[in-house]
């Protein structure tokens, strides 16, 4: 691990000041950052520890939204009765991520900014445009079973690995930020950038920006929502493909739908195509299948990751069917 300076901050202003220093990175739960520092993937000059910032943890609910403080622990949010009762896909996407120890440590804010698990990014020495811009993409030429089939470019096909982000993008969450100009709010869908030719820039955050909360609108869509995840190992594994889905059905016809995809795309991925396929039709095995197909109509496989295109639609299908039943537990 490269040497760094360390500052623990106790106010948001201090946090903003410290984290806008050159080479600064924010430390919250540490489950991504410490791992990547140890692996020589990230080498911040200055670490800004925000864990003690007051007022940034806890869940609040009103009739119209749920607000999760950025320093809330994943485990606490996953077991929050309000989240489980009225935001089931959020709870499930947290429960099915990592392990209880990691969920006890990792914060919601940090989880949203989790780095890719692309092995070439993580190995610390392979060419990787995300880690070292301009060196090339090893995954494009190598075994790429874990690579994205949606959103990739010639410069990077690294998958966004998170689970929670899949639910947040589906259910139109917003992110509250503290930035140099003061507090601001950003649709979660705009937090992550498309890869384009700058894979090293994953988010639209500016240096010094700190995520302070996530809010999710309370709606009938999220109340019966479901999250489905398929991985090579039953637990403690990243998704090959996952999907969050929520539906409203009136008189047997889907009136609105939300579908998010995980494990298959370079960023948290909302599938408007799948949603469009469902709206105006009854929810049946066939329409759920059609939604799955639509979600992956534009997907492009590399050498070894065709599985994401064969599995992904089925995961969407299952998520839609479960959402139709009101988000039955996996």
């Amino acid at each position, binding site marked *: 691990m490269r040497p760094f300076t360390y500052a623990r901050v106790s106010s948001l202003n201090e946090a903003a000041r410290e984290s806008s220093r050159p080479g600064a990175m924010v430390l919250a739960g540490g489950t991504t950052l410490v791992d990547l520092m140890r692996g020589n993937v990230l080498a911040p000059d200055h670490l800004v520890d925000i864990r003690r910032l007051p007022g940034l943890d806890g869940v609040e609910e009103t009739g119209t939204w749920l607000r999760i403080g950025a320093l809330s622990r994943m485990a606490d949010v996953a077991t929050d009765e309000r989240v489980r009762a009225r935001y089931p896909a959020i709870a499930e996407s947290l429960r099915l991520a990592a392990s209880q120890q990691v969920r006890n440590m990792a914060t919601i804010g940090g989880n949203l900014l989790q780095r890719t698990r692309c092995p070439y990014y993580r190995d610390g020495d392979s060419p990787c445009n995300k880690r070292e811009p301009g060196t090339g993409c090893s995954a494009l030429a190598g075994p790429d079973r874990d690579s994205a089939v949606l959103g990739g470019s010639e410069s990077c096909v690294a998958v966004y690995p998170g689970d929670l982000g899949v639910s947040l993008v589906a259910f139109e969450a917003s992110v509250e930020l503290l930035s140099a100009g003061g507090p601001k709010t950003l649709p979660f869908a705009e937090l992550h950038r498309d890869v384009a030719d700058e894979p090293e820039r994953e988010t639209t955050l500016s240096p010094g920006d700190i995520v302070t909360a996530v809010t999710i609108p309370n709606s009938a869509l999220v109340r019966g929502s479901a999250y489905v995840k398929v991985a*090579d190992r039953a637990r403690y594994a990243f998704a090959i493909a996952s999907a969050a889905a929520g539906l409203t059905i009136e008189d047997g016809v889907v009136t609105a739908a939300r579908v998010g995809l995980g494990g298959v795309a370079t960023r948290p991925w909302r599938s408007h195509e799948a949603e469009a396929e469902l709206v105006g039709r009854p929810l049946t095995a066939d329409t759920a299948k059609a939604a799955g197909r639509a979600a992956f109509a534009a997907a492009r496989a590399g050498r070894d990751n065709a599985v994401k295109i064969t599995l992904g639609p089925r995961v969407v299908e299952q998520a839609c069917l479960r959402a139709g039943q009101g988000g039955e537990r996996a």
Partner: protein
Amino acid sequence: MTKILGTPVVRTDAVAKVTGQAAYVADHTPAGTLHAALATGTISRGRITAIDAGGAERLPGVRLVLTHRNLGDAVKEGQFLTPVLGGQFQTSFNPLGSDEIRYSGQIVALAVADTPEIAEEAARLIRVEYEEVPAVIALADLAPDAPGRIDLHGLQTGDTATALAESHVVVDREYATSVNHHNPIEPFHAAALWQDGRLEIRVPSQWVTGERFALAGALGVTEEDVRVVSPYVGGGFGSKGATLWHTVLTAEAARRLDAPVKLSITRRQMFTIASFRPESRHWVRLAATSDGRFTAYEHEVLTQTSRSDVLALPGTDNTARLYAFPNIHTRESTIGVDVNTPGFMRGPLEYPELFALESAVDELAMVLDVDPMELRLRNEPAKEPVEGLRYSSRSLQECYRRGAELFGWHRRRARPGSMRDSDGTLIGWGCASASYPVFEGGVCDSRITVGSDGRALVEVASQDIGTGTYTLLAQIAAETSGLALADVRVALGDSDLPRGLATAASSTTGTVGAAVHENARSVREQLLAAAAVRFGRPRAVEDLTISDGVVRAGDGLRITVAELVADLPRGVLAVEIRHTPPRLPAEMAQTTLRDGTFNITGPARPDHVAFSYGANFAEVRVDPVTRQVRMGRMVGVFAVGRVLNPRIAHGLLAGGMIWGAGHALMEKTVMDRDRARFVNTDLAGYHIAANADISDVIVETVDEHDDLVNVLGAKGGVGEMGIVAMPAAIANAVFHATGVRVRRLPILVDDLLIG
């Protein structure tokens, strides 16, 4: 006499392990210890053209950077471990022996510093430049008969060509298994300390005696000047049997610095600085008559080895003796690729070949429309088919009968895809036969010292890698000598103890156990003789019994062992023996003693063969939409001769079966074929089964008496039997659930979504 053997005694080291007091290698840090870290290379084949350690050396707190430039001739050569009279090293190729790079992730430097953090940073700062040449890693990139293919082994009985031509049905298929890494949770470590010219090195080891010879040779000192200490080993599975070069380098660093040096190795480095299970390809032809009698078995195997060493894993010695095959032809070969040398990993000779054969048997059963268990039972041999010898014992049929009963096999519907749960989940049931050769180790010493308190210490330089050696040897010593189990303590994992053997090939109970048995019998005789003298009737030894540390005569006289020993001249009874397995060739015994070589013999012996057997049953549950496979029940019934401790044996067998589930459904080291390197080199990318992957695991052993195998009647194989056939049983179950036959492990969801 108190019954100790055969009872489910609690592990003697259980309390130490649950309290965190069991001291593994890395838990011991003498004052003044310096910390070391490795730098590993990034190319797969070529040369180092420049190495700049200046940045590392200038870092405050850095004491030494070892590279090929400054290693000089301080470190000598090391010989590759082979199972018959080879050396002790995982590879003969010293990674710092020259500027040559032979595989990705090869050690290029070792940095030593005051703290672990500085050592890691120093390793990171070492700059290396390379001249790279193209490299090959995967068998798929080589033609099956590519130049350099080395024939290792083969069996030939009868005439398979004619039999194949004349047979009613023939299954002719190719199967494959992937690269796997042992991944013990305890990483490799080494902690070295020189005192007065003598090296004491702590290294997690499955073979402290071998490590001692290896280090003495490589460091240019005598065996007496090396002590290898390894009291607890946090899992080995074959990876810690042979000496790894970083152990030598750590010792050399400690010698140069005249200070204790402790090396930590990262999980990523563990994938390249040690051995692994090589990938294998199999071409099987299995033929039968219309009523399901096997007529021919052909099996060709190709595995990876490195360009440095030839690793032989002759697995068809095992498979060829599993059924009544009238005609047999096998050919096993290997080919060097640009990897570190692969090695032995739990069921190394058995799992890949059994996966191929037991899949083929299942395919044949489908063609014949015969129940796959019935097909196996129908081909029970009277004698082993290769040389026509008898089996020392064989209870495979009994295992199947009991296993089928436990599993409920009779409820199986034959047609694939025909069994479903109420929620639509596809259910598949499969079975496979486990077969594991009984191996015997070499010459083994043992010393038992009984004190005037009546307590005994058993000492042997063997190891407990989680397999229960501490407990089993205590049981053997207590029951055989007549002491109470609580009065027997066992010391292992120290090369200064009486010379022991490698913890390998599931042979410890049979061979080291036999040594301790012989030793304890001698103690018992001496105690009885002393008691007879004490009772004043020196010729009445046969009237005496000893148990629980008390000698009793027929007429009611009694005396405790403590009293007896207290009266001996020095107040102590110490007996040391050298056990030479009765069938060990004398020349092999001599060479082993002189050179510290590894050797095992078996399973073919002059007038019989010895194998352990088992019947495995697996249930898989497949999601009808996503095709995700989850394990249902696993049942394993095994015949391993006498079971000395069912609690420990059943745990080992269950653990092996779970390994089988992992190998069948997730474990795979991904190869980047263009860059010739392993890709998923951490525990998030290389999936070993987690708790949630496993459902009910049911293990039983059948009563089996085998007087031929060894004095204890313990056939062994317990540590490895569980894994060898379970992958085939699961692959067969996946076929039964889905109708998709997958002939390459692991079976991933990818395989079940095609088409």
